[in-house]
């Protein structure tokens, strides 16, 4: 049990502290960092999916006026560490996927760099590539573990026996599509290498964590961490794709080291981001559900097939939420990977939970239909008393309350039997649950200092648009017992104490805990009447940590879908989400996170789709004109509500993390509503009108 902070600033819908700068356009992003006389980079990418670069004709390029450097696998510096193969940039002429970095041109202008890079002729020894994900591949393998350290497989009881003996079963295969994070700010860096300086390498980089970024870069270049500074006050979105640095960061650092004293800039183009910045693997999920006539699950099983890259393994933990969502005596989850000649998948908003709450939540809808049961009620009867995965009690779990309140707010009782027509449109309602684990990272430190009558808290945290600039002062103010106006927080620079990545919805939980400890230390040392310059620091590991409970945020999402009777066009006029995610630090930024997640979930349901062309080994629709993200005209009424949840086990703020839960379950709610509207069951995302047309009258 933790004594929660007395909420005074916490809970206030304060405006974003960085809002005015962003609206005015004066907030400085990585690429815009004002530096003297910058040079500009443009990458050269492989145009084969597998093989070897045998020659690159760079002589003409290097001779051009304005070209400052051309780096290739044949002349680039040897890196100190290539343990992480993604970072082994220009270390070998081998090509492991189409779009891989095989060079960079540094020039006086970005236009010249691009022209020269595009004009370099490359000779290859091409080999056949293999980039098609299928479930019948003989080379599927079980990784040692899946993302976030979860076991690859779990099993309890006998699913097959339960499937044979149960009164009602569902056994279907569901597919989620390849998705790209596509933050609006591209992956961008300004880099400066000053060999004689105390801190020779400075990176102004768009990242979800300046300290993790620094750790990766210093290892790759064999530098002490103190020799590298990473600065990142603002991020134009990341969605996980800036959680780890990608190869572009190593490339721009190499370019900077080739031009000592001269700042260099690199921003990936939108097209390049489809090769180099990570993506969400497509998943193929076989779901088996067995139930009695009253809907109580006798078995639940998920068997996942998904892809990774031959260069580096990333195993999305898609089967993990099925392990803990619902009660059932017989349970199984497995993950199998195909290692392909493709770019490296990585984190994208709610890795694991996002695709992993699609198959099961649609399968439950199919089970409800088989049973003739309300899908809300089906979820309620399968509510587990304790975490089915670990046997631990819940720190708090209010899924049933979310379902009930959501149903009431949405008007679920008007649902009716389905295939209701209003004018030219079929109308349907669907529901799905949401979940996201409540995490706190092991390492983060904050300083609190009294400076000219104000309290200054420093921590190298990142604000990717989530609101860290605004909510950390609220936490610090309540931890110190002062007005929020008397608190200044400084983030986004490795000069401040070490902070964990803004990932796993853990930022506020982790940094807020460190800030609270620092505030407590400060008060213990200096009392309530400190002197100028008094300073204390605190580590997150000094904060109370509960290991005895399973901690998750839960939610329920309800969707109204309309399907045009002539054309199959799909619209989502209403999405209602109700979440139980601990104490809300700032309702304004929280609502933005939740409706942003729901919007992204709707976009996944209806629009986003990286169409991978296995013949050439690349995403065919690799720009934002052809990779569709929901636009304003698609977004009508999206509401996010939350319960007033009090959880004494998670942290001193009582907060659970809200950045990712909004995207989980949304696609299932939409697909379930599509079925209710039309009778057409779509098991493969996205739901597009061509999948509707054959089922229309």
């Amino acid at each position, binding site marked *: 049990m933790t004594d929660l902070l007395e909420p005074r600033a916490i809970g206030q819908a304060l405006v974003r502290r960085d809002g005015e700068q962003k609206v005015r356009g004066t907030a400085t992003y990585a690429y815009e960092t004002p530096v003297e006389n910058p040079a500009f980079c443009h990458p050269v990418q492989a145009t084969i999916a597998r093989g070897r670069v045998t020659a690159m004709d760079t002589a003409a390029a290097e001779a051009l006026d304005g070209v400052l450097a051309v780096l290739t696998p044949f002349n680039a510096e040897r890196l100190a560490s290539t343990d992480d193969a993604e970072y082994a940039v220009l270390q070998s002429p081998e090509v492991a996927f189409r779009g891989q970095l095989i060079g960079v041109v540094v020039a006086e202008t970005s236009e010249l760099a691009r022209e020269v890079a595009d004009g370099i002729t490359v000779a290859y020894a091409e080999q056949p590539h293999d980039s098609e994900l299928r479930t019948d591949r003989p080379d599927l393998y079980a990784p040692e573990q899946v993302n976030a350290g979860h076991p690859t497989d779990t099993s309890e009881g006998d699913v097959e026996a339960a499937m044979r003996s149960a009164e009602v079963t569902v056994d279907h295969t569901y597919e989620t599509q390849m998705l790209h994070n596509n933050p609006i700010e591209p992956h961008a860096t300004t880099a400066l290498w000053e060999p004689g300086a105390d801190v020779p390498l400075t990176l102004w980089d768009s990242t979800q964590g300046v300290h993790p970024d620094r750790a990766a870069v210093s290892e790759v270049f064999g530098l002490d961490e103190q020799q590298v500074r990473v600065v990142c006050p603002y991020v134009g979105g990341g969605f996980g794709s800036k959680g780890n640095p990608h190869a572009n960061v190593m490339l721009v650092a190499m370019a900077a080291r080739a031009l000592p004293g001269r700042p260099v800039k690199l921003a990936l183009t939108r097209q390049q981001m489809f090769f180099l910045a990570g993506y969400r693997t497509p998943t193929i999920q076989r779901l088996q559900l067995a139930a009695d006539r009253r809907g109580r699950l006798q078995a639940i099983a998920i068997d996942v097939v998904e892809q990774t890259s031959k260069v580096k393994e990333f195993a999305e933990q898609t089967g993990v939420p099925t392990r803990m969502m619902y009660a059932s005596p017989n349970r199984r989850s497995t993950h199998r990977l195909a290692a392909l000649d493709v770019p490296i998948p990585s984190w994208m908003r709610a890795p694991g939970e996002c695709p992993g709450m699609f198959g099961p939540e649609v399968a439950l809808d199919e089970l409800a239909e088989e049973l003739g049961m309300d899908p809300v009620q089906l979820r309620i009867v399968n509510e587990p008393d304790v975490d089915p995965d670990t046997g631990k009690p819940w720190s708090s779990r209010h899924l049933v309350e979310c379902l009930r309140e959501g149903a009431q707010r949405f008007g679920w009782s008007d649902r009716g039997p389905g295939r209701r027509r209003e004018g030219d449109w079929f109308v349907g309602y669907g529901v799905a649950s949401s979940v996201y684990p409540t995490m706190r990272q092991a390492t983060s430190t904050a300083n609190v200092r009294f400076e000219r009558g104000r309290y200054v808290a420093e921590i190298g945290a990142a604000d990717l648009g989530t609101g860290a600039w605004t909510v950390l002062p609220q936490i610090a103010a309540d931890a110190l017992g002062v007005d929020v106006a008397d608190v200044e927080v400084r983030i986004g620079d490795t000069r401040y104490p070490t902070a964990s990545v803004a990932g796993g919805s853990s930022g506020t939980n982790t940094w807020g805990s460190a800030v609270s400890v620092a505030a407590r230390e400060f008060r213990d040392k200096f009392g309530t009447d400190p002197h100028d310059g008094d300073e204390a620091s605190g580590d997150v590991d000094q904060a109370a940590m509960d290991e005895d409970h399973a901690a998750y945020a839960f939610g329920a999402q309800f969707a109204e879908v309309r399907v045009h009777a002539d054309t199959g066009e799909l619209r989502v006029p209403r999405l209602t989400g109700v979440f139980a995610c601990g104490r809300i630090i700032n309702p304004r930024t929280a609502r933005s996170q939740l409706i942003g997640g729901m919007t992204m979930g709707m976009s996944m349901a209806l629009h986003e789709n990286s169409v991978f*062309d296995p013949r050439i080994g690349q995403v065919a629709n690799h720009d934002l004109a052809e990779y569709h993200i929901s*636009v304003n005209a698609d977004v009508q009424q999206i509401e996010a509500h939350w319960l007033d949840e009090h959880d004494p086990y998670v942290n001193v703020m009582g907060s659970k993390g809200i950045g990712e839960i909004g995207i989980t379950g949304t696609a299932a709610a939409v697909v379930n509503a599509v079925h209710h509207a039309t009778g057409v069951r779509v098991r493969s995302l996205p739901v597009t009108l*061509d999948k509707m047309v054959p089922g229309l009258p």
Partner: protein
Amino acid sequence: MKPFSYARPGDVAEAVREVAAEPNAVFLAGGTNLVDHLKLGVATPDLVVDVRTLTSQEVTDLPDGGLRLGAASTNSEVAADRRVRERYPVLAQALLAGATGQLRNAATTGGNPLQRTRCVYFQDVTTPCNKREPGSGCSAVGGYTRYHAVLGVDAALPDPDAPGTCIATHPSDMAVALAALDAQVQVLGPSGARTLPFTDLHRLPGDDPATDTTLGHGELITAIDLPPLPAGTRSAYRKVRDRASYAFALVSVAAVVTDDGVRLALGGVAHTPWRATRAEELLRGRALTDDVVRAAMDAELAAAQPQPGIDGGNGFKIPLVHRTVVATLRQLTTEAQA
């Protein structure tokens, strides 16, 4: 991007002379498509001649009761023009269904019909494309064909290595409406002015997929004329796309219904805005019941060739455009009765 020279001549005649004199020269108007292509390396001109301010920006009445759209009038201006909205709703609707407000403010009457295909392989210089690099082959065949043609192509899977193979579609919404309206194109070229029917402006790939239109090098569209329509004419544009806004058509239908019959043009299905002349013939003089329209569209689409490919291919377009025509004509008929 390849460096190029930029010229801003004083009048259209000079602009035409400058482009005609340089084999690798292009006109620039709104730039909404060309500038992207310059950046991507899809277009690599040596000379760009800016005509944005050289032609008329006005919409003017013609003596025969029609309207003349100056080539420099923007898509936004034309869509907002009261005469266009009242007399040619199919055109106003088509314009407003295209792109975004910002793009419509920049895109012009002369430039819009000359935009190039959105085929993802055409836009990616690292893949073979007969339209971009004649003779290199067609990557779209058997590839990502969702936005590709089903009409005006010979086979379901044409030979990707043949130099004439191209299954691209024309992406313009405006052009589909202009095809249905029997618009006339005013052109100025090195050998003088001429007028051509809008339906003759675009061409099927034939053995030269690199050439989208019948305009000669140096020919510039100076205006597009809308002929008068008989009283009681009704028209509509229906666009079906993958999201509610800012997406190219999967299929679209421009329909103009007069007492004499129906004029129908289809978008998203062919290398040109596709005038459905076979269906028009079968509909002439007939009451436009669903059954009659269905039979006409069956005939129109008899030669359609679904293109298989990754992500399911594009066979869905055939029933989709069929249904969309039926629905659009039903809507126009119902409105007329109301």
